């Protein structure tokens, strides 16, 4: 059989596979990780380990209870059993095989351990304790990894949809993409290990939400770089899954003053397609001297649920440092979030990234997510 025939047969099989009847995606699959993230995560503002409903929602594709195991309690408060201790544990391991080239040189092939995290949450009445420990890469001499906790907080459910939390957490800013996968996350201080200690109020209603956090910074950093400030993120639900949100952040450290804002939205384009978009701006002003730095970043994602377990997407990202000779990065990615099993997600992606006047780098990768 010639290579051309193999290719044609492969394409035909792929098309037939994509068009095969499948269960319709639930709306939360369209907005998985965005908008009202608290329905599927322990954190009311999203991110971190999924809660029991987050796992049960996988049952749409994989069948009832397919994703539940021991110590997967539902932590929702039950007035009839106010002092019952409930526990939901989880694990999250992410690996990234990749190969890339920009014409000048190549990267890989290599395998990057992106994340290894275990943890979960325990609830007693209206009080929830959440935490995770992760293997953090070290770069100097000696042990290659250390143990760290990215998030650990104590929460209290004041009433249904209203929570107060204190501890170390990801600040509620913009679209909650996975850490460091988009410029708004990695360039605005919400990268993989960029969490802050703070006090947060999370209010979630049917037609609006408000996430407000007063933070004192990442206490593991040098004191001069610890930021104290406030971030507010109101989100307005427009019906049918559409919504718009605004994030405003103001902070101060010994080194600089910081202001940042983000406008973001999500829009269902059809029964199985959607659009996410965000524009964010940040300005830093030195307290001593006239140094300043303004950063603007944009993000858009168009997705199509070809199957209930498969999200085919096109992502566009851009970032520019306006006070650093316009240093800019542009990223375009075409990929698939494919939940092969309830505990395993495959995310193959072709990504191209161009930086200022350099030739674009093309990366072929396939994230492997193991989640319990």
């Amino acid at each position: 059989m010639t290579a051309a025939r193999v290719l044609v047969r492969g394409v035909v099989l792929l098309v037939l596979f994509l068009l095969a009847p499948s269960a319709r995606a639930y709306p939360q699959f369209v907005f998985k990780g965005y908008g009202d993230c608290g329905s599927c995560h322990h954190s009311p503002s999203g991110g971190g380990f999924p809660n029991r409903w987050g796992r049960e929602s996988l049952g749409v594709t994989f069948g009832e209870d397919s994703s539940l195991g021991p110590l997967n309690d539902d932590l929702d408060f039950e007035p009839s059993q106010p002092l019952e201790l409930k526990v939901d544990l989880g694990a999250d391991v992410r690996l990234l095989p990749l190969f890339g080239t920009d014409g000048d040189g190549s990267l890989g092939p290599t395998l990057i351990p992106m994340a290894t995290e275990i943890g979960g949450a325990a609830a007693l009445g209206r009080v929830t304790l959440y935490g995770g420990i992760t293997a953090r890469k070290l770069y100097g001499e000696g042990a290659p990894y250390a143990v760290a906790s990215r998030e650990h907080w104590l929460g209290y459910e004041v009433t249904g949809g209203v929570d107060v939390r204190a501890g170390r957490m990801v600040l509620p800013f913009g679209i909650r993409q996975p850490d460091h996968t988009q410029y708004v996350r990695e360039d605005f201080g919400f990268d993989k290990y960029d969490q802050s200690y703070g006090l947060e109020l999370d209010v979630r209603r049917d037609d609006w939400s408000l996430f407000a956090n007063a933070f004192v910074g990442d206490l593991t950093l040098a004191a001069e770089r610890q930021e104290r400030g406030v971030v507010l993120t109101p989100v307005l639900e427009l019906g049918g899954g559409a919504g718009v949100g605004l994030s405003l952040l103001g902070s101060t450290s010994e080194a600089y003053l910081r202001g940042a804002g983000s406008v973001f939205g999500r829009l269902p384009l059809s029964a199985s397609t959607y659009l996410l978009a965000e524009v964010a701006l940040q300005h830093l002003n030195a307290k001593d001297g006239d140094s300043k730095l303004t950063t603007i970043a944009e993000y858009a994602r168009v997705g199509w649920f070809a199957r209930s377990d498969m999200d085919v997407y096109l992502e566009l990202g851009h970032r520019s440092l306006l006070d650093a000779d316009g240093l800019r990065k542009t990223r375009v990615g075409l990929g698939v979030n494919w939940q092969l099993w309830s505990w395993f997600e495959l995310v193959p992606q072709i990504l191209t990234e161009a930086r200022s006047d350099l030739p674009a780098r093309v990366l072929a990768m396939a994230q492997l997510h193991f989640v319990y």
Partner: protein
Amino acid sequence: MTKWQAARALMFGNRCAGSTARGSGRLRRRHAASSALALALSIVGGCYPPASERLTCEDVDPPGSFDYGTLEQLVALDELGSKGCVAAPCHSAATQRAGVRLDTPGLVYDELSSSPEKYYELLASGVMPHDGEPWNDDELKTFRSWYCAGAFPP
């Protein structure tokens, strides 16, 4: 060495608090308690690199009294320099080890400002520059001073 001590040594190397306790049961219990506390603190706060490799704001020059250009020159020195990062086979356009290019001033700023702790750890430990002369105290002090002033572009 107990299994716990061996596991801790494997996990933390010599970076985290705690030393081997010998002697009475009371001492062992005290040591177990202090080890548990050290483990809890290290997990909560994150286990740091050794002090010499940690990016702190101790012993730094005030803003305006250091030259970021020094860092740029150190990183971008070509094969004529002993501390450069772009000399083959490292981070030039043609090599891009670990996916890192440092062959233009813009790329140097982008890299250093996006992950300052990582780069300081690499440089202060002497792991980098891989084939060059380690940065000296004054050069590391310039790095710390730039970071602590806000890591602004030149």
